[in-house]
């Protein structure tokens, strides 16, 4: 593999993705900012006041890390699935497929684009959160590593969705029927210690629970789950999903006749 060629190619994809995100900022940046502002006003401010404290924090503070993580997850996923499927649909994915860059570079370039959008929106939501509550970062390294790894996991998942998608409906099915329910049930708005034991165990099968709680641990220092488990799950998901992406690209599934 020509490393210099692949570095330049990856940089090109990342630059193209950044240009795309900024060009359509009304679709990529503004909606999550508005949605999260509404979450903070309705759940945090209006309803949260009646709920009182949770795990020793006021409700607004408690949900803020979950809402930041939710926006990172949905935007990382959404960026890669829409960008790569758009390239497939418009057939300009062929520009990359005919070039000598490796399949790993195509995947890494798009994942990096998803991560950058996820982090950009996450930063914006964090700034919005600071208008409503105070956030002190208890464990900065945990916060950064968890948000980065979660963003990579969902960017890879978005890539796989895009590879299999044949029409635009196919890129909204997973976010609507899988991602959103798992996120809502992943402890964004509540601690699973509030649930009966059975449902606590069921919740522990939801990988998003580990990401949300590990991120909350990074910011607030409190978590429903073991941080070690969260890292292990994230590493396993990154490896499995990246391998799946490579397998799909090498076999040409969804992208070659």
């Amino acid at each position: 593999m020509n490393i210099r060629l692949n570095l330049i190619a990856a940089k090109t994809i990342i630059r193209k993705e950044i240009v795309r995100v900024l060009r359509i900022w009304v679709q990529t940046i503004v909606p999550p900012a508005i949605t999260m502002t509404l979450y903070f006003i309705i759940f945090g401010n209006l309803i949260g006041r009646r709920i009182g404290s949770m795990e020793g924090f006021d409700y607004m503070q408690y949900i803020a890390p979950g809402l930041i993580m939710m926006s990172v997850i949905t935007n990382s996923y959404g960026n890669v699935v829409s960008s790569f499927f758009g390239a497939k649909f418009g057939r300009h994915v062929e520009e990359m497929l005919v070039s000598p860059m490796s399949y790993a570079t195509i995947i890494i370039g798009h994942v990096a684009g998803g991560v950058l959008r996820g982090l950009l929106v996450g930063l914006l939501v964090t700034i919005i959160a600071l208008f409503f509550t105070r956030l002190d970062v208890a464990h900065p390294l945990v916060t950064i590593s968890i948000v980065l790894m979660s963003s990579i996991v969902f960017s890879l998942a978005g890539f796989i969705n895009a590879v299999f998608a044949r029409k635009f409906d196919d890129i909204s099915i997973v976010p609507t029927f899988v991602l959103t329910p798992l996120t809502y049930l992943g402890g964004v708005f509540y601690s699973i210690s509030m649930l009966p034991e059975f449902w606590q165990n069921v919740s522990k099968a939801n990988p998003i629970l580990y990401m949300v709680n590990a991120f909350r641990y990074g910011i607030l220092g409190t978590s429903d789950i073991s941080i070690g488990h969260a890292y292990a799950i994230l590493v396993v998901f990154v490896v499995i999903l990246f391998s799946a992406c490579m397998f799909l690209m090498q076999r040409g599934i969804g992208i070659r006749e």
Partner: protein
Amino acid sequence: MTALSIRNLTKTYKNGNQALKGIDLSVEAGDFYALLGPNGAGKTTAIGIISSLVNKSGGEVEVFGHSIDTDLEAAKACIGIVPQEVNLNLWESVGNIVTNQAGYYGLGSKLAKQRAEKYLRTLRLWDRRGDIARSLSGGMKRRLMIARALVHEPRLLILDEPTAGVDIEIRRSMWEFLQAINESGTTIILTTHYLEEAESLCRHIAIIDEGTIIEDARMSAILRKLQREVFVLSLTQELAAAPALDGFDARLRGDGELEVEKGPDRDLNDLFAQLNAQDIHVSSMRNKANRLEELFMRLVDRKDNGAAA
């Protein structure tokens, strides 16, 4: 040196359609090569496999000695491809499309910009570099795809119907451009429905039909195979009946023009000598059918008849 070597290439699609039935091709470096065939013959499938957009079912492909099975990245680096259908990101600017493609081939930012300017200027798109591709006309989009394919200066340029839907003026200018690229050392493989285009540009020709190569030879050798040619003569006076011409078949057309068919053993000087002798004067003359087109139809028809028999 061989630019492209294809041996026993087969492709069967999932629906059972056998698009390629074991074709062999060899394109020498520096050649201008035409790959012709009716719709659905297998041309685009073959090009798709060479450029790794289509998975082959069997056989071997080498580009400048690099096998697409064992040395795909090196093989891809040698190829520039202009596909039949527009596959541009229509929301991307013209300049970015070309510089991004340069980046995919590992060209640094400065060189990518220099090459983009060079080819956008050559293909008369430099003034539109800031516009999105969607705003370009059909001909401009085709030229942009050529600029994109050339930005890494490939050794082998493959054009799949590059002038389809392009007006005559632009087509002619594209021919001149492609000839210049070929003279500078780039091997070119061209598929086209305009057989006049192939006859004007290409030195070697292969005809593919129903997934098999039915002709593969130098253009001059192929044209020598033609047995008869038909010429249409515009006359300075109207004739009541077709003149008797020894060794030629002559007939009057409805518009008063004279149609003359000549065999390989007769020459045109003889025809004009006989017309002069009968005081028939010719103001202009044209070949009735493109010679290559005639051969193409004959080969494809013969194959069909053979299959029917």
